[in-house]
């Protein structure tokens, strides 16, 4: 188990007794005791249950539960526990594999989400379909547009209205296990060549049209976002040719990479940072020929049942003191200069998380049209059924 995992693990019986004896001896404060043992959190949750304890009235009623939809391995679990301890609102976390899946759920209705984490290219579609609310920034005093790097945050604003505020940005690069592979994988062209040769049966691509088709396009020298039929046809050839050599088509690649079942995969920054932190032989590189740059946002669905709690959690997450812990756990780079200033040097100096400006130059932001384009969806289906 990693150090990071232990930090968030529940307290053991022995540690609990140690802490209890320290409290009795007076060497720790009651607040510290409640904090490390989780009893403070438990009390806060219990306090929200009517009839169990008398609950304290809030200025605005936040309810007792809320729900957030987000990505795998994307948050410090302690963040939500701290929020619950502070407000008494328990956070239910729904994990998703793709923006399309989130959009499908929102279109079908009745998601119950009070906050969710869409990616840059989806926000204009969400606002066009009337699925998200414009944000009332007066309810998010911890968000400061002046400290944001607008290069990554511009797409949260549609026609001058702010619909979403940024969580973090990142890239889609290549992770490979250098103890298993002799070659260094420096481009998407090499990725697809090595997938059929040195990493035969050991390479993974995402179960996600945007990145899998996008990176195949990039390997041919085309735009990541192309929807030109002839370019898509050539990308399809690349994918179908490599398919028999693939280990899997799956966006949840961390377990296979950690078990060394897979040696090479398409990989998002935060996963790359997490893998490299725990297994230094897994390296993360950006395609010299291009690829994707992205930012993820927080937005509030129009259908949210508990908007008050949605705003409360959003404001909590925008507090740099909380955001910095999220960034350390999640590993993706921040858009907020206040958070950047709080991050330890080993993170801001990590080339996976904060790559050179030059390596970012060939990357492209995903375009809204790729999300809704049916020809890319059909190409993906042909690739998977080939």
């Amino acid at each position, binding site marked *: 188990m990693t150090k990071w995992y232990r930090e968030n693990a529940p307290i053991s019986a022995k540690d609990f007794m140690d802490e209890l004896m320290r409290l009795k001896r007076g060497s720790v404060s009651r607040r510290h005791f409640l904090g490390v043992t989780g009893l403070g959190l438990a009390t806060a949750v219990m306090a929200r249950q009517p009839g169990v304890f008398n609950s304290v009235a809030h200025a605005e009623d936040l309810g007792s539960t809320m729900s957030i939809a987000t990505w795998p391995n994307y948050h410090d679990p302690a963040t939500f526990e701290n929020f619950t301890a502070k407000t008494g609102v328990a956070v239910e976390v729904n994990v998703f594999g*793709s923006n*399309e*899946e989130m*959009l*499908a*759920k929102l*279109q079908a209705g009745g998601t119950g989400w009070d906050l969710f984490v869409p990616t840059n290219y989806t926000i204009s*579609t969400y606002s*066009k*379909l009337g699925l998200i609310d414009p944000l009332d920034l007066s309810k998010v005093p911890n968000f400061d547009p002046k400290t944001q790097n607008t290069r990554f945050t511009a797409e949260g604003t549609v026609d001058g209205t702010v619909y979403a505020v940024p969580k973090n940005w990142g890239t889609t690069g290549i992770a490979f296990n250098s103890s298993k592979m002799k070659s260094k994988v420096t481009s998407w062209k090499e990725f697809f060549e090595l997938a059929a040769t040195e990493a035969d*049966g050991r390479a993974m691509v995402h*179960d996600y*049209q945007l990145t899998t088709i996008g990176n195949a396009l990039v390997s041919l020298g085309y735009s990541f976002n192309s929807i030109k039929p002839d370019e898509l046809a050539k990308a399809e050839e690349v994918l179908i040719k490599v*398919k028999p050599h*693939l*280990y*899997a*088509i*799956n966006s949840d690649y961390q*377990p*296979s990479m950690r*078990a*060394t*079942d897979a040696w090479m995969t398409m990989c998002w920054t935060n996963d790359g940072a997490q893998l490299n932190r725990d297994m230094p032989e897994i390296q993360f590189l950006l395609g010299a020929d291009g690829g994707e740059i992205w930012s993820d946002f927080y937005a509030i669905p129009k259908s949210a049942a508990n908007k008050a709690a949605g705003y409360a959690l959003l404001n909590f997450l925008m507090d740099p003191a909380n955001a910095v812990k999220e960034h350390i756990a999640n590993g993706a780079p921040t858009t907020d200069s206040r958070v950047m200033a709080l991050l330890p040097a080993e993170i801001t100096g990590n080339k996976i998380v904060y790559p050179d400006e030059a390596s970012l130059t060939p990357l492209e932001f995903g375009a809204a049209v790729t999300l*809704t384009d*049916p020809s890319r*969806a*059909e190409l*993906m*289906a*042909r690739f*998977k*059924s*080939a």
Partner: protein
Amino acid sequence: MPLATTTKRNLVTTALLLPSAVWLFIFLVLPFIAMVVFSFGERAPEGGYLPTFTLAQYANLPARAAAYWNTLMLAPVGAFLCLLVAYPAAYYLAVKADPRYRLMLVSLVVVPFWTSLLVRTYAWMYILGSRGIPNLLSMIGIEDVRLLNTPGAVLLGIVYGYLPLMIMPIYVSLEKLDRRLLEASADLGAKPVSTFFSVTLPLSLPGVMTGVALVTILLLGEYLIPQLLGGGKVFFIGNALVDLFLQSRNWPFGSAIAVTLVAVVVVILMVAMRIAWRISGTRQVDLV
């Protein structure tokens, strides 16, 4: 019996059946009608459903021919493999096992079924992955064995996942077997093997047919096991449906595939019933 009493009884029966009829209508018939309606529509530009009347979705079905082919191949092969493993197990449970332990053995078959298939499939991912069996094999010098994300892993997962559904109906039909028939067969000079083939097996066929139909129908919609144990490289109708509803958000096309799948299931059920009738020589066979 006076007519009035009969009518009254019928009314009571109808009233008692009403809740389940309403339940069936709301949760089975209505969604199916919605699906049929969707299947004649068009995909909205941003995804979802646009009401029109077109047969384009049905005309487009060949675009998922590979998914249909894979599914129609997998379902019978998977059901047959299940049967191969299940029949001896059910035979042992019903005929050979000590009656004192029978209940315990039967529950051992059923208990794993109470756990989510997802969790059990993840367990297989670990067992088949590098840290599982291949790791043990490498200790005795067999290197680089690949088990996970292979067609074999998918078949193993399917046999494991659906086995109780095959064992139980066969067990039930073997349990009802009249032992005196076996004795009669022996008295008439048949060896155990020919008793099995001419008495036991034919009498258990209704159970076999039920099991095969049950597993085949469920396999037609399977998507989890190929995704997790096959690495998402083999595409079944279940996977096509998940993609169409959740990824490309093409509800009409997804609905057309789902409606066609239901039609295939109905045909399979009807054929299975016919075969069961023919074998048992009666129309009293209850399937599923």
